[in-house]
């Protein structure tokens, strides 16, 4: 069987199990995120699984931006709803997103420095 097909099967099976488990136990974690965690464990246990998934997963991640386009076009479709609250939405989204990224990144770097947690593997 072509490698791409088996890779897709692995991704879909993990996602499927993730969705089922997330719903059975009513977890706050969504199915795909659960599946991502499970697949990391799977990859650590099996070199074969890693080799199967790698081509498809790399392909999807290289084109990750594409997958957000359909929802993005939805924003254009809802332009009238957005413009009704343009100021509140605009200020809130821009302000909170920029602030949250800065606070998160500064916290990380500050704590990492404080605890001497340097990234040894980072290539310059």
């Amino acid at each position, binding site marked *: 069987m072509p490698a791409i097909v088996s890779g*897709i099967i692995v*991704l879909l099976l*993990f*996602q499927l199990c993730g969705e089922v488990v997330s719903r059975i136990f009513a977890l706050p*974690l*969504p*199915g795909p*995120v659960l599946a*991502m*965690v499970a*697949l*990391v464990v*799977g*990859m650590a246990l099996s070199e074969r699984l890693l080799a199967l*998934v790698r081509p*498809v*997963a790399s392909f*999807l*991640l290289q084109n*990750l*931006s*594409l*997958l*957000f*386009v*359909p*929802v*993005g*076009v*939805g*924003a*254009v*479709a*809802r332009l009238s*709803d957005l413009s009704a*609250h343009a100021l*509140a*939405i605009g200020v*809130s*989204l821009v*302000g*909170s*997103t*920029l*602030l*949250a*990224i*800065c606070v*998160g*990144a*500064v*916290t*990380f*770097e500050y704590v*990492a420095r404080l*605890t001497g947690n340097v*990234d*040894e*593997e*980072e290539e310059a």
Partner: protein
Amino acid sequence: MTDPLLIWSYLESGPLLWLTATLVAYWIGDRIFRLSRGKPWFNPVLLSVIVLGALLLATGTPYETYFEGAQFVHFMLGPATVSLALPLHANLKRVRRAALPMALALLAGSLTAVVSALGLAWLLGADVGLLASLAPKSATAPVAIGISEKLGGDPSMTAVLVLLTGMIGAIAVTPMLNALGLRDWRGRGFATGVAAHGVGTARALQVNPTAGAFAGIGMGMNAVLTGLLAPLVLQLFR
């Protein structure tokens, strides 16, 4: 020759036209992004959305018709999220080592995102429905939509707000963190994933592989934390 209107009505009724249009628009957006040598303003998502939005308006096509075709692309978001296991696995040792800074950055970033989003919108007179739609906007779309439903928001509005959040983050992150002089790619990526989910992660993957891996983790972790924080913080503004 067949009446062109007949051909149009045939194309309009199937997914082929808008699926093709989505891929072509993205191809154009990505070309421009590459030609600009990765300038954040030439974000490929933003460019393709502008092209497609203009096309829909010009042809008077409703979003539902467009989505018939685009749903195949949209569907791949799930498997792509699962695929984030790949960079995560490749960086597992570094991730474990960075557990403490990650945990604190997650808490700080996630809390800042929810509190400041609701606070600013509330100050500017947003109603309760909009606040509920806005609260989970830093989480990845499927999670945010679920949270929004539970809080009494408008799920489709939340999907749009989530995407805008991601695009704002993707465009601003590189110049902003450069200006702050932050050099730890782990923290830069992680904070981007926490605040700007998958779109931010896509941007991080374009900039630096380490940042991309940590962004994927940030996105996954904040999906969980937002589910807990958003309802609590929303209580304050009701």
